[in-house]
């Protein structure tokens, strides 16, 4: 019984301690991450999308937003021709 109680106390101390340590670390990690993001990829809302597009434009030409626009045009034309005969 006494053993159970001491186990419970220990659980409380270490458990609560660990929760605080973990969330404190998360505060630091999150803060650091946000700082890095703001520093090296500062544009709000619009840049990330833009950045992604331009970065990948050189790599996976077929799959980017730019190409998707183009694709829509192409498909529209194709479908139009295809249906109109």
């Amino acid at each position, binding site marked *: *019984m*006494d053993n*159970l*109680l001491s*186990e*419970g*106390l220990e*659980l*409380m101390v*270490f*458990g*609560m301690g*660990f*929760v*605080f340590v*973990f*969330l*404190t*670390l*998360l*505060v630091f*990690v*999150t*803060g650091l*991450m*946000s700082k890095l*993001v*703001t520093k090296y*990829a500062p*544009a*709000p*809302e619009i840049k*990330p*999308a833009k950045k992604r597009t331009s970065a990948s434009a050189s790599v996976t030409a077929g799959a980017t937003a730019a190409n998707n626009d183009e694709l829509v045009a192409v498909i529209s034309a194709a479908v139009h021709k295809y249906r109109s005969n």
Partner: protein
Amino acid sequence: MEKLITLLTASGIYNISGGQFVMIVVGLLLLYLAINKNFEPLLLVPIGFGGIMANIPEAGLAFSAVENAVHFAKPEVLQALASVLSASSTDAETLLHAYHTSSPSVHATASLVAQDGGYNNGMLYNFYLVAIASGVAPLLIFMGVGAMTDFGPLLANPKTLFLGAAAQFGIFATVLGAIGLTTLGVMDFSIQDAAAIGIIGGADGPTAIYVTSLLAPQLLGAIAVAAYSYMALVPLIQPPIMRALTTESERKIKMSQLRHVSKLEKILFPISLLILVALLLPDAAPLLGMFCFGNLMRECGVVDRLSDTAQNALINIVTIFLGLSVGSKLSADKFLDVQTLGILVLGIIAFGIGTACGVLMAKVMNKMAGGNAINPLIGSAGVSAVPMAARVSNKLGLESNSQNFLLMHAMGPNVAGVIGSAVAAGVMIKFVG
């Protein structure tokens, strides 16, 4: 004529026990609360209905093949079961005790023996095996919740994570309370039971079900019902505590607007959290891993169809089975116990302590920040119960200052509370699992 007698003696009305009758009434009560009082209906409608079905006499829907075999008591089957279970006699209680404490391999053999005797798992028992015993249903719900969660407010003000930490004190205090009651001889909880009961204070349904299914499956019905009921009662439980611990001037504090959070930060957050979990607490990896996975699907913007399914079709399907499975544990012999009373009392204490600690922590942080930066009302949202607790903070804020919208500020601690209780769950599983 013989057939008529068969029909009558196998009917529910002929066989119903007092316990089953009471539990059917409890199921009806849960349905009433869910439908009429809007108590977390998504879970309590299936749980209540499952509870009624589980207590239909003679149907054995919530029992395993072995339990059904013991109930119907064909002598040769009982004999065969006693033999594989190494039970000293063939009376029901001895057999069931031997069965419930047997190793997985003996369990599997006993199940085959019962099937050889012509008995099968009940429908709800099968749902329970697939959804909860396997651990998968709470994890998928966590994934769906992750896909529904916006960490923007938390990222705009990461310090609110401390509020999510403080509110978990309710969990551990309750563990101690449960152990205290046992030490005093009032109740009889093991350390595993105490840990599972404490998690009610985490105010997070799937976490409570996941932990309970690992540590104290026999308490699953009572703990799940308590967890969801109290989450529904947050607007009743929290306000008096919040008012008692704050001054009118504190409640009037207007918080500065949250900064804008970029898409990239939102994408990196679930990944950062996952890595922190991986490095520090592997036992929380299933819960927080699936939560982060859901959130990453939401935020990354390239798998919207998966995120949409995780938030809708999949979580709905899982919720139906999870609810019915939890309901299957509302059988009279497991629920109608003085332990259930203890769980209900301890659960509400856990909620209360968690709320109080959240508010007190917010007061401390406010003091440290100069006394006019953080409205302590948002502290109570740290228990999680998303988004109910944040709404309560907002409501009380409006009462003191009709221009004070705390909702977004309270969403930070609110989602921090989810992380906090999942971490607490990991610690429990590590130490007493």
